[in-house]
Each structure stands twice: as C-alpha cells, then as structure tokens.
C-alpha cells in the first residue's frame, strides 16, 4: 500500500503542476500562437499524468481485491486518454490555421514565411 500511495502522489503532483502552468501561461503570453503553445502542450501532458494515476490505481486494486470493476475502470480510462491524445493537437492545428487566415498576425515576430508565401 505504501508504494501505491507514493506513486499516486508523484503522478498527481506532476499532473496538477503542469495543468497549473498551462492555465497561467494562457493568461501571461502576448498573442494567440504562444498561448496555444502553453495551452496544448502543458494541459495535454498534465492530463496524461493524472489519468496515469487513475490507471495505476485501477490495476493495483484489481490485483489486490480481484474485483472486476477496477479493471473496467482502468480500461475505460485508457480509452479516454487515447481520445484526448488524438484530438487535442489536431484542434490546436485547426485553431492556428484559422487564426492566421482570419488575419491575426503573430506579435513580436522575427520572421513570418507564411505571410510572404501568401503575398506571392
């Protein structure tokens, strides 16, 4: 039981820390693209770790008690995690592309090759 608690504390701590960074970065950064960096990467990584905590919890309780409901808990959490990983970066790509096409340009940009390619 002691190792299980330690693993749960570590995973939940990492997950909550990165989720916090994601929402703070959403408030701090200056324009859409850098906000997307913070939002997509940090929240996806944090959600992976909080879900991993639930998966570890389910499998270890199933090992101890032999009750089938903890196995179902772990399997369904794996499915939810896969959905999250597939759909999240694609949504970020769609938002970035739509923002650039609707005329929101990156602020403090050093170089913008996409704009030059559009002008040609």
């Amino acid at each position, binding site marked *: 039981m002691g190792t299980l608690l330690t693993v749960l504390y570590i995973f939940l701590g990492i997950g909550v820390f990165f989720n916090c960074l994601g929402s703070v970065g959403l408030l701090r950064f200056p324009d859409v693209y850098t906000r997307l960096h913070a939002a997509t990467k940090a929240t996806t990584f944090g959600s992976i770790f909080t879900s991993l905590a639930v998966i570890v919890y389910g499998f270890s309780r199933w090992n101890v008690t032999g009750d*089938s*409901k903890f196995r179902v808990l772990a399997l369904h959490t794996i499915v939810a995690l896969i*959905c999250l990983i*597939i*759909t999240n970066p*694609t949504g970020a*790509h*769609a938002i970035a*592309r739509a923002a650039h096409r609707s005329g929101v340009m990156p602020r403090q940009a050093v170089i913008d090759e996409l704009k030059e390619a559009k002008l040609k």
Partner: protein
Amino acid sequence: MKEMSRIVKTVTNFVYGFIIIFGFYIIAHGHLTPGGGFQGGAVVGSAFALLLVSYGSLNSQKFLKKDILSLFEGFGLILFIVLGFSGLGITFFYNFLANSGGWFGNAAVIGVNPGNMNTGGVIPLMNIAVGLEVLSAFGVIVLTMASAAEFTKKKEKS
C-alpha cells in the same frame, strides 16, 4: 462549404468509425450503463456533423444520403409504436418480454451486480428504435441546414 486541411481529414477518417461504434455501444447498453436511445443517437449525429465539417457539404454527399436518413427516421418511429402496441394484451406499453426466459428475457440479479446483457425485456429493442429515429433526425437537420446556409449566403452576395 469548402473542405478543411489534410491533417484534419486524416484524423477524421480514424475518429469517425470510432465515434459510431461508441454510440452504438451506448445505445445497446442502455439498460446497464448510463445511456440509451437519446444519448447514443446524439453521439452518432455528432459523428455525421464531424464528417460534414471536415469534408465540406459537397464532398460529403458521397458518404451521406439525405433520403436514406429520412427513410430510417420514419422507420424508427413506426418500430417504436409497434413495440408499444405489442403489449396491448394487458396495457399499452406493457413489458411483455421481461422475465419470460427467451431473448432479452432473463431475470436480473437483485442488488448491486456487474450486469448481464441478456436482460431487460423490451427495453433494449425500444432503445434501438428510438436511437435509430434520433440519429437520423439529427443527421437530416444538420444536412438540411448546411445546404440552406449556403443558399441564403449566396443570395445576399449577388
């Protein structure tokens, strides 16, 4: 409506079948887990909306036929009414299959249990009928409003 970029289309090809099998799982397990005809129908209708948004309303005509969907809608409603009339020997909407031992007829275990698919009487069949109706109704609404939006916008430009 034009189509979206290639990345979105490739992801849509994988997610589309997954959403549909998940919606059918929700419909078929309506008497065991949270879900049922309304919820599963809404999920599958959202899958049609996803296909429409990523392929555009012109290209998605290859995959979705509006006439077939509206046919299935009427079929679902009629199936539901027929199932309601079937218990008319006792009352309207009587659950004539429950605890009879045949298909869907096992008696459920009383109390907290993991659940058995083969119970519930006429409830799973009604779930399927209502799910068929709701999914085709939402598909028809989304397809009709997409083509109508194209039309009214074009009228405004000219």
